């Protein structure tokens, strides 16, 4: 494949005491790709995402994100990525406009750019009438769509989405994925985690983590063929299981659970 690599990971190891949370991870993510990052609870996904987003230093290994080194240039990484998770997204006690302005400002966009893009965004989401409403007054589905738009507001090269659709209704879940498709087709790489296995099928490629290691990485159709499975869910059940509990117990014993 002759595509630009935007995330390059080689032999990434992260230890907490004697506990190995990430055990020699190696993978590439390409520009404009939708990359699904799957694994059971406690498999080590969160640790890896924290490293990729410059929030946590790896113990060893090479991690390049958007052209920057995760060990030496974590601040540069933060500036060039977008991030959204299910639990925290926007400030509830600010209005939609205020939230957008705040994030635009944090990422160093000038006033004029912020203003233009805000108007474009409100139109696109058909949010114009809501612009001056507090986030807390919005239904969850709208909040999540807005949080995603804010995460890509500064036009980053990569956006990390950590369980973005948890708890939202089936219709919003699909509208959300259309926004992901649109973003990827505009060249922004989407790195996404989910517990919905049907969503895993929407990704260009997926990796599955178990016990701190990547045990599978390919396109959904190729994985299904390889493991003789009817769906990604079946693949997941076949390979994400072994030993996973023990690693979580070990994490607990070390106080990391």
């Amino acid at each position, binding site marked *: 494949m002759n595509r630009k690599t935007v995330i390059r990971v080689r032999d990434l190891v992260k230890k907490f005491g004697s506990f190995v949370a990430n055990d020699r991870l190696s993978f590439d993510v390409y520009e404009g790709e939708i990359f699904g990052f799957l*694994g*059971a*609870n*406690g498999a080590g996904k969160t640790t890896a995402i924290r490293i990729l987003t410059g929030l946590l230093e790896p113990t060893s290994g090479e991690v390049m994100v958007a052209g920057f080194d995760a060990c030496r240039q974590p601040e540069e990484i933060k500036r060039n990525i977008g991030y959204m998770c299910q639990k925290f997204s926007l400030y509830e006690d600010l209005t939609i406009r205020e939230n957008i302005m705040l994030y635009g400002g944090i990422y160093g966009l000038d006033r004029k750019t912020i203003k233009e893009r805000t108007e474009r965004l409100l139109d696109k989401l058909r949010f114009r009438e809501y612009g001056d409403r507090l986030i807390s007054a919005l*239904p*969850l*589905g709208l909040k999540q769509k807005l949080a995603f738009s804010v995460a890509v507001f500064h036009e980053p090269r990569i956006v990390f989405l950590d*369980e973005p659709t*948890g*708890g*939202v*209704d*089936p*219709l*919003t879940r*699909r509208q959300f*994925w*259309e926004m992901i*498709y*649109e973003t*990827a*087709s505009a060249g922004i790489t989407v790195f996404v985690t989910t*517990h*919905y*296995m*049907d969503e895993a*099928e*929407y990704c260009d490629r997926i990796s599955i983590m178990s016990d701190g290691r990547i045990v599978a990485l390919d396109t*959904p*159709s190729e994985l299904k063929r390889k493991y003789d499975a009817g*769906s*990604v*869910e079946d693949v*997941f*059940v076949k390979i*994400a*299981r072994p030993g*996973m*509990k023990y690693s*979580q*117990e070990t*994490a*607990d014993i070390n*106080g990391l*659970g």
Partner: protein
Amino acid sequence: MSKAIESSGICKTFGDRQALKDIIFDVNEGEIFGFIGPDGAGKTTLFRIISTLMLPDRGSMTILGLDSTKGYRKLRENIGYMPGSFSLYLDLSVEENLNFYASVFGTTVEENYELIRDIYSHIEPFRKRLAGRLSGGMKQKLALSCALIHKPRLLVLDEPTTGVDTVSRTEFWEMLRKLKQHDITIVISTPYVDEAMNCDRVALIQDGKLMSVDKPQNIRDGFSRKLFSARAGDKYRLLLALRNYPATLSVFPFGDSIHVTFSEETPGRELSEHLLRAGIADAVISETKAGIEDRFLELMEKNE
């Protein structure tokens, strides 16, 4: 069949927000009854009312033959409630939590051990550990053990599988099926529509209203149109092209294909030509059977 719960016209309002609108349903004794809906649909409010922890503004609920507002003291002896957020004592050990809940209900762990054996045995090796230091899966098992320790006749589980991976979710439903053999009625809520099939009957809930109450198979079979499954190499382009087609009624991505319905009986040559003009030459479209999520989406459209 005798009823474990009979709810008529339950309404609940917070400020200017109507959380529950005229909720009518009944639950048979011994069944697993699921409330399926997104965050904010009203599931937790309803479960607090069922657990006698909150009073409805209007309507009445009979639980295990007693009026929920008048008979709440007696009812609480027979209801096991597992709230959505973990609410055991983090600074007590696994064992201390369990003993505490048993003593509050005037019983002992030994007396009802048989009921929780399958679940508790997974965490028993860690009985001296503080609850605050358990993993998510272990906390879930402890909370379920505590909710069961007084041998309730009705178990109320508010979103026990939210945020849990697909393997652990399957395990959890297996535990519930085993509990059914002990003649316990189980009321459970979940945002995962695919979990409906694990229930005897389900209620689809959205915006404080019940959209449908039935066996999951019947809900699924209620899908009213002919459903087609479409595939192509470039899925996003296919999705946009299908949406632009004049006779298209609905288009949704569904796993590795796209589910689409049309106003015409069977899409013919015009559709293939339309797709070709959009640059899609490899589309494969065939009729498919609707799942419960297809029906959920259809009901959502009708309610809007």
